[in-house]
C-alpha cells in the first residue's frame, strides 16, 4: 500500500521531535556522568570539555552501590516471580471455573490498586513489626518483607491481565487434556502455560518494574542491609553535597541490565498486554 507524501513527511518530522524529546535528557545524563563534579555544576554546555571516567570509579565507594543493586535485583526478581505464580493460579481459577465469590474476588483485588500507599504505609509497618515480635519472621527491614509488599502491588493488574489472556486461549485445549486424564493443575502446566507465554512475560516485566522503582515503602521499610537502589541512589545527595556526576553514572550502570532485559522481552510484553486488554 503506497504511503502518501504527507504521511512520510509527518513521520520524519514527528519521529524527529519524539527522538529529541527522548534523547536530549538522556544525552545530558550521559555527558554529566562523564564530567568532573565542578564541570557538572557549571553552566550547561552541549559539548563537554574535559571528560573523565572518574565518576564511574568513585560511585562504588560513595554509597554501597553494589549491595543496593543486588538487593534491588533480589527483591524485584523475587516479587515478580511470586506475583507471577500467584497471578497464574488465581487467574486460572477465575478464567476456567465459575465459583461463588468469583466476581467479588475480582472486584476486591482490583480495588486494592486504588489504595493510596500513604494510607496503609504506617499500619502495614505496624503489622510487620507485630508479626516479627510474635513469630520471629522479620518482615520489617528485610528483603522478604519488601518482596511480600511489592508482590501485592503488582498482583491486582497481573491477575486482571492474566485472566484476559487465559480467556483468549481456547477452552477446548485444556478440556481435551482433562479428558485425557490430566489433572486441572496438569492442564494448566502443560497446555495453558505454554500458550500463555507472552502474557507471562508481560506480567513478569510489569511486576518487576513495579518493585524495581518503588521508593515510598522502601524508604521506611529497609535498613542498610536491605536498602534498594530506588532509595539508595538518594544517598548521592547529602545535606552538604550532591554528587550529580556519580548519580548519573550509577543510574546509567544499573539501568543497562534492566534495559537489556526489557528489550529482550519487549515483543512478548507487547503481545501480552494487548491480549490481556482485548479479552
Amino acid at each position: 500500500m503506497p504511503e502518501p507524501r504527507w504521511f512520510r513527511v509527518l513521520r520524519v518530522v514527528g519521529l524527529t521531535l519524539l527522538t529529541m524529546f527522548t534523547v536530549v535528557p538522556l544525552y545530558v545524563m550521559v555527558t554529566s556522568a562523564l564530567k568532573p563534579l565542578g564541570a557538572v555544576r557549571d553552566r550547561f554546555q552541549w559539548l563537554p570539555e574535559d571528560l573523565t571516567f572518574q565518576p564511574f570509579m568513585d560511585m562504588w565507594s560513595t554509597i554501597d552501590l553494589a549491595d543496593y543493586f543486588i538487593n534491588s535485583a533480589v527483591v524485584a526478581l523475587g516479587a515478580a516471580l511470586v506475583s507471577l505464580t500467584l497471578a497464574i493460579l488465581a487467574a486460572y481459577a477465575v478464567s476456567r471455573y465459575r465459583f461463588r465469590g468469583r466476581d467479588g474476588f475480582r472486584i476486591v483485588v482490583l480495588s486494592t490498586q486504588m489504595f493510596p500507599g500513604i494510607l496503609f504505609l504506617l499500619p502495614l509497618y505496624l503489622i510487620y513489626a507485630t508479626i516479627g515480635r510474635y513469630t520471629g519472621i522479620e518482615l520489617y527491614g528485610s528483603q522478604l518483607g519488601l518482596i511480600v509488599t511489592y508482590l501485592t502491588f503488582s498482583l491486582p493488574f497481573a491477575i486482571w491481565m492474566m485472566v484476559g489472556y487465559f480467556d483468549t486461549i481456547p477452552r477446548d485445549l485444556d478440556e481435551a487434556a482433562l479428558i485425557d486424564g490430566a489433572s486441572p493443575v496438569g492442564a494448566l502446566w502443560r497446555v495453558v502455560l505454554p500458550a500463555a507465554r507472552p502474557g507471562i512475560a508481560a506480567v513478569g516485566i510489569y511486576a518487576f518494574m513495579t518493585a524495581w522503582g518503588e521508593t515510598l515503602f522502601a524508604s521506611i521499610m529497609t535498613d542498610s542491609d536491605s536498602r534498594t537502589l530506588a532509595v539508595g541512589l538518594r544517598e548521592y545527595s547529602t545535606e552538604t553535597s550532591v554528587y550529580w556526576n556519580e548519580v548519573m553514572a550509577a543510574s546509567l550502570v544499573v539501568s543497562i541490565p534492566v534495559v537489556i532485559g526489557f528489550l529482550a522481552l519487549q515483543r512478548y510484553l507487547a503481545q501480552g498486554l494487548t491480549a490481556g486488554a482485548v479479552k
Partner: protein
Amino acid sequence: MTSTAAPSPASTAAPPEPPARRRWSPSRRMLPYLLVAPALCFELLVHLLPMLGGLYMSLLELTQFYLRDWLNAPLAGVANFSFALDFNSAVGVTLLRSFAVTAGFSVLTVGLSWLLGVFAATLLQRSFRGRAVLRTLFLVPYALPVYTAAMIWKFLLDQDDGMVNATLGGLGLTDGQTFWLLGDNAFLATVATATWRLWPFAFLVLMAGMQSIPHDVYESATVDGAGLWQQFRSITLPMLRPVNQVLVLVLFLWTFNDFNVPYILFDKSVPNAANLLSIHIYNNSFITWNFGLGSAMSTLLLLFLLVVTAGYLAFTSRRMKDA
C-alpha cells in the same frame, strides 16, 4: 479464605454452574478457592488489613503523643474529616487546591502520554528502516529509576545553569532566565517530567494493540478508497478501545497517586502549583506527625478514586457494548 470470598455482595450474582461433565466431587468445588487463596492471603495481609487500620486511624486523634500506643489513642470521630473538609479554613482550602492541582496534573499527563503514545505507535506501525532502533530507544526512559528521571529533569530545568534555559537563551527565544521550578511553571515541570517517564509505557501498550489489528481490515479499507486518516479514525481507534480502557485507567491511577516526581524534583519543598495530593498528605502525616488527619485525607482520596473508577468502568464498558 473461602469464607472471605464467599460473602461478598457480588457473589449472589455469580452465574450458575455449568452442567457438570463428570461426577461432582468436593475437590473440584474446592480447587478454585485453593487457587485464589494465596493471592487473596497476600492482598489481605498487605492491602486490606492495613487499609482497615488506616481507616481506623482516620477516626483517631493520632499525633506523636499517642503514636506509641496508637490502639489506645483517643477517638476523634469525624473531627479529622470535618477539619480536612472545612473550606473556610486554610487547611481545607489547601486540600481543595491540592486536589485541583492533582486533577489537572493527571488529566494533562495521561492525555499527553496517551497522545504521544498513539502518535508514535501510528508512525511506527508500518515497517521502515530504523524502526526497531526507535522502538527500543523510546522505551529507555521507562526503564530508568524514577529518582534518576526526576534528577535529570531537575538538572535540565535549573534556572542558572540548566540546559533548557541555556538553549532557549542561546537561541534568543527567551532571556534565558525563566524559573521552571518555581511558581506556576513548577506545574509544567512536573507534567513534563512525569510525561517523559510515562509515555513510553502508553506507547508500548498501544503499539502492541495496533499490531494485533488484522491486516486485511486495512486492506479492504484501502480498496474502498479510505485515506490513512480515515482508516485511523474508523479502524485503528475503535479497535484499540479495549486496550485504551485498561491503559487509561492504569495511567490515571498511577498519576493520581504520584508521589516521587514532585518529591524529588523540588527537594521535598514542593511549590503550591505542584503540590499533588500524595505530597500534601505526606506532609500532613509524616512531616507533622498528625496521622489521624493524614489518614482522613487519604480516605477521601480513596473514596474519590473508587467512585471515579467505578463510573469509568461502567461508562466505558457500556460504550464498548454499544459500539
